[in-house]
């Protein structure tokens, strides 16, 4: 229960991480079962299957992780909306997207 499930880009997964769900290949065959502890070798093999994200168990507490993700998301919103000026509908849309992201990480 205290373990947290999340998707990480393959490049950020380090050996020793525990797989949180069955990992399937393109056709749907199980490559690695849930609960497997990933080794350097496995990570290299996974890269060959054109898989870019892994479901992993994370030991960072849910709250810490969410704050971090939300901050990254909000930064991206600022960047994408960088040149809208004070245009009306774009500012409204921006406030909706911000509310949406905040709601997601509540």
């Amino acid at each position: 229960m205290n373990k947290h499930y999340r998707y990480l880009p393959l490049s950020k997964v380090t050996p020793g991480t525990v797989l949180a769900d069955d990992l399937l290949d393109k056709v749907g065959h199980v490559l690695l079962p849930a609960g497997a502890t990933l080794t350097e070798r496995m990570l290299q093999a996974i890269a060959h299957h054109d898989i870019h994200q892994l479901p992993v168990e994370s030991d960072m507490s849910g709250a810490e992780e969410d704050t971090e993700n939300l901050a990254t998301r909000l930064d991206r919103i600022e960047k994408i909306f960088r040149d809208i000026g004070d245009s009306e509908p774009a500012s409204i849309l921006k406030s909706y997207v911000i509310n949406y992201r905040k709601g997601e990480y509540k």
Partner: protein
Amino acid sequence: MTDNTEFKVQLDDMVKKIKDLPTLPEVAMEMLQNLEDEESSLDMVTEKIAMDHSITAKLLRLANSSYYGNNSKVVTLQQATAMLGVKNVKNLIRLTTLANKFPTANCPAFNFKAFWRHSIATAVCAEQISRTLHMKHDFAFTAGLLHDIGRLVLVTCYPTNYDEVLRYQERTESHLIDAERSIMHIDHVDAGLALAIHWNFSEAVCDAIRGHHQPEQENLNALASVVHIANVIVHALDLSQDQNDRLPLLSQAAWDTLGLGEADYLSIFHETEMRFDSLNQIVL
């Protein structure tokens, strides 16, 4: 600053090149052209798909994906099409054939993956909007999928010129469409329309291509506004994962035409992200 015309492209020349593009498989062409054809029954569609193993595999994966998640595993094509429905099946066929059969050009600055992510997300989002508005959503998906097809035409027919466009855009921090006009004197709306006419796309889809940047033009199908807003939302949600992504101009007229409120948008955002994830993992 660019007064050279080295990269300029003439419309006639482009139309000629479009005619040389490889044609898509017949099934896909048929489905891209006849959006209104409700005649083709589930059985007929299933029969056609059975001949294409890659589509069969993708359909089974989609039916078993968490989005459509049900408890029992879907193992046969018949089960999958019955569960997903003719509309979803046709959309998946349109999508996979376009994404996999279009030739990839040699243009280092063009991010094909981001392009397809953007097109698929816009298709899903446009369908979600039209569903919220109780419009016919079969059109919306296809129109969203094809709205930027002109970018693919330009990069396929003129890879070198397009490379220059993308470099220019990065240097000047400008909108893509302005960069295209400055360098090539033609933009992805012109190119998309030329292809749509050559491939006999339905008028609604042509309107969506023509109007996705300027939906306020007269006599456009309302679908143009839907695709315009879907396009902007997909940028706003960062779904193409393009580092330099920026929000395109958002038309007040289109925004008012849809007249949606915050609650509608939040649920559209959510549905779009969920469905995009399941499709994206299967197609790309």
